[in-house]
């Protein structure tokens, strides 16, 4: 609208910058692709971003906030408000097909559909998480808690490699 040198911010531009901010623990997918960024609002030079934590105890959340601020500051956007919301609760169902493929190529089995089931499910044993290395479905769960809050550890019976799964949540 304005033809002067001040390029107005748009929500699209802010989103494009946020696409460059990767999850520090899974550096192939962005905070937008993971569904951590819930909302972007632009009012003049002010930017308000709403984010949601993946897990309550995810130690990367603080770093993600800092990375978001730094990435925007590098583009001259400094008047930034970051709000954290809990509802609706983050779910891996928000991770899109492209991002799932990036995870797989990085060696992390992408999440299956977020489980519903009963409130209390004492047995799980989802069979056949596909090995991201060799593609075999002959794999077994080692632990539902892996190197980060969002991952489980599996081992492949075909190629004998251990691998991480981005667990359905």
């Amino acid at each position, binding site marked *: 609208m304005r033809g002067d040198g001040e390029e107005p911010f748009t929500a699209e531009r802010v989103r494009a910058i946020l696409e460059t901010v990767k999850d520090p623990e899974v550096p192939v997918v962005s905070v937008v692709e993971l569904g951590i960024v819930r909302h972007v609002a632009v009012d003049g030079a002010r930017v308000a971003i709403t984010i949601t934590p993946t897990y309550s105890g995810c130690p990367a959340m603080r770093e993600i906030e800092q990375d978001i601020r730094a990435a925007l500051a590098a583009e001259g956007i400094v008047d930034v408000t970051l709000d954290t919301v*809990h509802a609706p609760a983050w779910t891996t169902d928000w991770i899109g097909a492209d991002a799932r493929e990036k995870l797989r190529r990085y060696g992390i089995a992408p999440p299956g559909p977020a489980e519903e089931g009963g409130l209390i499910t*004492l047995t799980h044993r989802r069979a056949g998480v596909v090995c991201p290395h060799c593609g075999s479905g002959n794999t077994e769960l080692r632990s539902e808690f892996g190197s980060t809050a969002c991952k489980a550890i599996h081992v492949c019976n075909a190629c004998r490699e251990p691998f991480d799964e981005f667990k359905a949540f």
Partner: protein
Amino acid sequence: MKGPANAGTGPAHAGTVPPVAGKREAEIANPLFEYLLRLGDDRLVLGHRMSEWCGHGPILEEDIAMANIALDLVGQGSSLLKLAGETEGAGRDEDALAYFRSEPEYRNAQIVELPKGDFAFTVVRQFLFDAYSVLQWDALQQCTFAPLAGIAAKALKEDRYHLRHSGDWMLRLGDGTGESHTRAQSALNDLWRFTAELFESDAVDEAIHENGVVVDLAAIQSRWQQTVGDVVRRATLTLPAAGASSSGGRRGRHTEFLGHMLAEMQIVARSHPGAKW
């Protein structure tokens, strides 16, 4: 005892809490604040106990699992104490509430403050608490106090993982070797008298109906007994007989163990108030 010098937020230290538990029992000025402390302190204290295993787990995968669970619990505690501080409106944030309250000001149930014991004790305690917590979150995610409902819905997803994990270990320890069975049974016996406190309700639970927080503790208790009874039976363990119970944590009366734990948890924050890294 004052809050950390948190660069000019709020009326400075107006919110110093009266230290004597007895006084507070008579009139509870802000029941919702009190209730959020109970929820938050349960998670923070249990999370800290779980974190004591970090680097000491029986196997690598379990060490990682326990650290993950500890992080979830401390994170939940942090969200709840933050909300408690906002509800109180005296300028205390989650760090002020975690690090600058002393033992009688903590509102956790006694079961979560007991020392971590051996691995069986940690597993059995975690299982008993997880089974309770999942039901509590399920009730709270339906409450009309939106900020709490949001935290509950999120925490529920985490605690369902925790419960599956601790439930699995109950079976493996109870129905494992002679030694693991003996240790699990002994832990269950020692912990049993601390479980009743989780289902006690008082004036605080009544008063927060006004805030849209209604939790049917009797219904939760009966479902908890079902789950616990089922797992204990499948683990070839025996439910202890009902007997004397120990409680008081919700009103600031704790076992001798909480003070020592808090001393360790709080020393850095108290030695260097407002420190950042």
